[in-house]
């Protein structure tokens, strides 16, 4: 990821190193969209290489792609850009498979990318909406661990929610 800055002031570049050794060169303004990186930059000053042993390169790349989009579009905050961002976000999460979605969410959470966590949790919630319990289990590959009768007992107690 190279910087394609058109501004005249030189923007500082940071090196981010993922768990599998893949490195990314990003503008500070992009990387500091992530709370964790922002903290490191503020606390540690001019460390230019940041190691992220908990995030693999594939997902770090995706997280940074998101950051870049949002950092660029945030500079001039008019309503049209807001719409563009929303549309872009929609595309970003549209075809994520379970595995990617999960790892991306973990990476965003670990890097304190609050807005990205919002976007991804919203996506997961949308996958629960309108589904029956069995369908949710199937979607998320979860096995029921209730003992026989327990499920029925819970249903009975809040029967209004199961009509």
């Amino acid at each position: 990821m190279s910087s394609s800055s058109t501004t005249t002031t030189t923007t500082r570049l940071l090196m981010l190193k993922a768990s599998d050794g893949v490195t990314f060169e990003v503008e500070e303004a992009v990387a500091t969209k992530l709370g964790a990186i922002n903290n490191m930059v503020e606390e540690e000053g001019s460390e230019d290489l940041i190691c992220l042993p908990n995030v693999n390169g594939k997902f770090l790349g995706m997280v940074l792609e998101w950051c870049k989009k949002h950092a660029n579009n945030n500079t001039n905050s008019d309503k049209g850009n807001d719409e563009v961002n929303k549309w872009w976000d929609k595309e970003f999460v549209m075809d994520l498979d379970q595995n990617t979605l999960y790892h991306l969410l973990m990476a965003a959470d670990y890097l304190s990318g609050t807005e990205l966590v919002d976007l991804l949790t919203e996506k997961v919630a949308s996958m629960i909406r309108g589904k029956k319990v069995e369908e949710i289990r199937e979607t998320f590959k979860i096995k029921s661990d209730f003992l026989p009768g327990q499920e029925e007992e819970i249903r009975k107690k809040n029967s209004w929610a199961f009509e």
Partner: protein
Amino acid sequence: MVGRRIAEDNVWTQQDISNKRRRKISKIKKKEPLISSHASSKFWADIVSDDILLEIFFRLPDGRTALQSALVCKHWYSLIYNSQFIDRFICHHNDHHHHQQQHHSLLFQRVSCARRNMYMCYFDSKLGRLVSGKNNFFGERPLSGNVKTLPSGMFVEAVFNDLLLVTDKKYKIYICNPLRRQWMQLPDPPLGGGFGFRARTGYGLVCRANSCNTEVGCSINVEYRYRVVLISSTVMDDPTVEIFCSETGKWRTLDVSFPNQETESFGFHPVVCNGILYWLDGKRSFYGISAFDPFNDEDDGGKRCRYVELPIDVPEDGLLVDKTCFGACLGRVRFAHLRKINTGYFELRVWELSCDDDGIAAWDLVHHVRIERENTKKMVPLAFHPSNGDAIFMSCDDIQFCQYEFKTYKYKELGEWPDQMEIRKWRVSVSSLVHPPWPKSIPTLSSTSDECIA
């Protein structure tokens, strides 16, 4: 108090608990290799952190969906059936969800002159159409509460969000939440029993949060107080006000005289806004609005009861109800007046009420439009959209039910009135029901305290 009660129940056996502990330990171990990229079926049940799971659950559309999701596995259940879950869920929804999306229903009831006629139909904003019949709305029978069968001849007298104040043909009073199909009968009021010379002329229901949590703010869901207000009068006397207080479980008579002494009778559905009840004064036509604060027990500064003049000149014989609309939108009282200029040509004005600290009321004109609708002879403004300030619901020519948008000057036809409504013949009472993120439960009555704490 559903969440907490169930969480405390001993649904789990000892073995479950030890399983849970084991899972906790294994969770910490598993959490480390975040980098692995192979798919595992354990992600969403076990490995993902509780905080993330909660963030996902808070984004579910309503309490019903959240409770259904709790049945997926024990871990999800333990997070959703947690004592703080409901408050945090409501808090998230209040902060993040636009009012535009709020689900609401409008309940239409036929009102006859002598006593009410029991047919009703309703509009559901999610379905986007009119649905006929009260059994569809209330269900066949109550699911919980101290009422086993639905009262016959029920009539909705007042609304607070998703709670309804309902009476049956024997004048018994109930509080009901149709979303949970929960019912509770209140004790009979000592004076305004509904029989004899004394007639009930006004009802009101207001809820208030018990306490406000600094983290999640005030929510009226599980623990809250409420007041039921009943106004009754005889031909000879001024109206009598009785108040039912949820803390004491008792009725008491208030020494209140409404400032407008000419008040013949109330008789219209009240509007509740910021804890204040507003009634149109009058029976078939009206002159002004009475405002009453049921939580102001001491009547400090005489603010408990006020009279509000209407924003238009009122003719000597009063305003007719089918030319006006009185209601609330986004926490503000609104009043609309429709004037027919010619066939297919109407003038509609909408005002909003604002009150300063001294209770001095002022009306602001928020909409003033000329409506052109070819060949339309009759239009009746019925109700304000509860969460869209630029929309009003109307009835056209006693046939169609539609939504009018002030900004685009456009109509959306939402359905035709069912024949049984006989909309030509009867006045229609409209109740606006807002579906909160989590339907309120009706607290059981306790008789521990004797004082009503305001």
